[in-house]
């Protein structure tokens, strides 16, 4: 009998409380713009704070009350959807990813000391870090610690960011005490993997893969410019296929051919690259020899025609140069086209693309010929 009382009282209480709650939710209802909910559902919910707001919902409120739709993570697609809801223009958002401008692994970058102390970059930076190069990645992973998507791998003394996992929140950029991480357009497929502002003679001494400001790349491909003592790729997509091969220190990475992770960290991939480079050099040499021979033949013909005209080696060279440059420009056009064709299916199946890589490198090589 008693049990019934208990059940009865509890059920009664439940009904009463439920009624109260239902009533309260009606009476104390806070009117919120329904669009906030809608916008929030479209935002990526990474809650990374890159937009400057405390999480996606906060940002959704801000958008509804007139803020520009600049979600670095969601990119243009999200912006467009949100704009549709609000019926206004989407602000231009370029999708960007973070990139570590350093490939100075332990075996490539010279060490200057043994570091004892707190194992964070911020702490090691206070005593100058253990690398001879003061611009390079310290490799203690402050960036990886703040990365919300685990896109950063720390290995062999450098951090490498996977552009596929990177959502562009910039937290790593803020965390890095040496400012070696830079935001780049996601579409950019060519990078100079060095941040060293050291003068060339110093940079060369302290790191095997340092940009030594030789400017060869800037002459090869107009997408490269110098920023102080380091070259920078400024194109929005890929560059000249052969650009990585002209760099004497292998500081240029073509992401359309190699994944950053492997290019920086894998010895096998490095070796493959070296082979490609050697092959390229070989071809270049052959080409040059062919051209020189052709020129010589032409000259001889000319000389024969002029009958006894002396061939000055100096004028010879100056005459040779412009023609060579002309050849190059032709080349670049060709490979740029081939590049575009190559990169279009890249959005689809990445794995297939990876497997493709080695043969593709050869293909483009052949095309170059």
């Amino acid at each position: 009998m008693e049990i019934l009382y208990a059940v009865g009282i509890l059920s009664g209480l439940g009904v009463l409380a439920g009624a109260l709650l239902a009533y309260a939710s009606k009476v104390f209802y806070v009117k919120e713009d329904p669009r906030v909910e809608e916008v929030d559902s479209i935002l990526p919910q990474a809650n990374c704070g890159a937009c400057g707001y405390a999480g996606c919902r906060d940002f959704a409120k801000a958008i509804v009350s007139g803020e520009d739709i600049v979600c670095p993570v969601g990119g243009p697609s999200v912006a467009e959807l949100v704009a549709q809801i609000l019926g206004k223009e989407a602000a231009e958002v370029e999708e960007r990813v973070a990139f570590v401008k350093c490939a100075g692994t332990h075996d490539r970058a010279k060490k200057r000391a043994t570091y004892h102390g707190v194992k964070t970059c911020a702490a090691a930076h206070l005593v100058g870090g253990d690398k001879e190069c003061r611009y390079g990645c310290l490799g203690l992973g402050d960036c990886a610690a703040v990365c919300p998507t685990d896109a950063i791998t720390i290995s062999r003394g450098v951090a490498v960011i996977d552009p596929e996992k990177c959502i562009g929140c910039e937290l790593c950029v803020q965390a890095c005490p040496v400012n070696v991480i830079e935001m780049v357009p996601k579409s950019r497929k060519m990078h100079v993997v060095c941040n060293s502002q050291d003068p060339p003679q110093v940079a060369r001494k302290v790191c095997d893969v340092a940009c030594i400001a030789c400017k060869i790349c800037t002459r090869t491909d107009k997408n490269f410019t110098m920023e102080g003592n380091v070259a920078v790729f400024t194109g929005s997509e890929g560059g000249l296929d052969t650009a990585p091969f002209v760099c004497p220190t292998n500081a240029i990475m073509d992401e359309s051919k190699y994944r950053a992770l492997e290019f920086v960290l894998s010895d096998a991939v490095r070796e493959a690259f070296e082979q490609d480079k050697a092959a390229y050099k070989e071809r270049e040499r052959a080409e040059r020899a062919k051209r020189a021979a052709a020129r010589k033949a032409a000259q001889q013909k000319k000389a024969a025609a002029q009958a006894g005209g002396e061939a000055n080696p100096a004028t010879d060279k100056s005459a040779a140069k412009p023609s060579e440059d002309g050849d190059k420009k032709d080349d670049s056009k060709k490979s740029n086209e081939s590049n575009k064709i190559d990169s279009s299916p890249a959005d689809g199946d990445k794995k297939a693309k990876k497997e493709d890589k080695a043969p593709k490198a050869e293909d483009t090589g052949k095309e170059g010929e």
Partner: protein
Amino acid sequence: MISKTFRGGIHPYYGKELAASRETEKLPLPDQFFVSLEQHIGAPVKLLVKKGDEVKAGQLIAEAGGFVSANIHAPTSGKVTSTDPVDHVSGRKVPAVTIKADGNDEWVDLEPVDSPESADPKTLLDAIRRAGVVGMGGASFPTHVKLSPPDDKPIDTLILNGAECEPYLTADHRIMVEKPREVLLGALLEARILGASRLFIGVEDNKPDAIKALEDEVEGLQLPENIKEISVVPLETKYPQGSEKQLIKAITDRNVPVKGLPMDVGVVVSNVATCYAVWDAVYNGRPVIERIVTVTGRGVVEPGNYWVRIGTPVSHLIEAAGGYEDDAAKLIIGGPMMGFAQGTDAVPTMKSTNGVLVQTRDEVQGPDFAPCIRCARCVEVCPMNLPPFLLAAAAEAGRYDVLDQDVLFSCVECGSCAYVCPSRRPLVQFIRMGKAYFRGQKKGK
């Protein structure tokens, strides 16, 4: 004789016996000098020479880039071979002038101040400014700036800092023993510029010979009118007795406020080596291109004190001290408590380099540390009355938001807390991380 002191502090092994009694020797000139262009706090200098220039000793090679800045002079005669960056004590590479010495050590003509005892303060200040004198105790703040306090901060007391509380170092000790007269004359010049009526010389009581030498000199000194009180004050041998605020507290019982400067309580503190440089600048017109450096530690064969030209590579100094012991493992510019560990001995000496310490393998702490057990030892020894464990914990967790910046920046990084921490936590490094974070924030990073 009661030795004065402050609250907190530690009593580390002082290691002064290694070099304290070694008479200062002239160091032979090296072939190459690397004169760093970052030798003071303040505006960067303007370089006056270029590659290929011939310079003479004492010649101005870089000009002060503003009022809070200091001239830099060539340490010897020779040829400028490069202006590329070289290693700096801080671990960075900074612009420097590389000079290949020609071995003749020819000097420029020096212009001493006429009758310095009666010259007006402006002339004196100008001589000090031209000579590029900076705080030689380590802070390297331009001395002519320190000696020109704003009018609303009257100075009544000048304190000479001869505490030299850093273990192992004996550079100040030697200058007090060997050049007491010059140090005091320099101090009197400073006092006159400041209009100070009291002059105290604070010396830790582990240097009785320095106290004696200074007291003898004070007795025989003809005091100018402005000085009403002058005395040598023995201080308890305790680290960090030579820290500015602690020194002022011990001698005058005045509390320098948080974020304040000694001049807020009417005091200026000047290192004894700085006083010597002031004397040299005024009486001889000689710029700061030489100073006493202690080369010491169990990692060098023959510790000693040397008159060293600024810009001499540390390797040259080590060579003079008989080279490294086989188990040398850590090279420190400055003392063991606040000095900077170096990766290489190619780093050159600077105006503020008072010592080079080489530690052996077994003296060096391992890299590991354990969690804080809240033993409160750091709180006990902190001379600034801070909770170092808390500041460090916040920095370790990245919770900079819980830190009070005024408290954090009160830390003088003396290292007492880390010295006593049984968990071997690098407390100073954590605190420096916190400071670096806020400095970065200010810069808007």
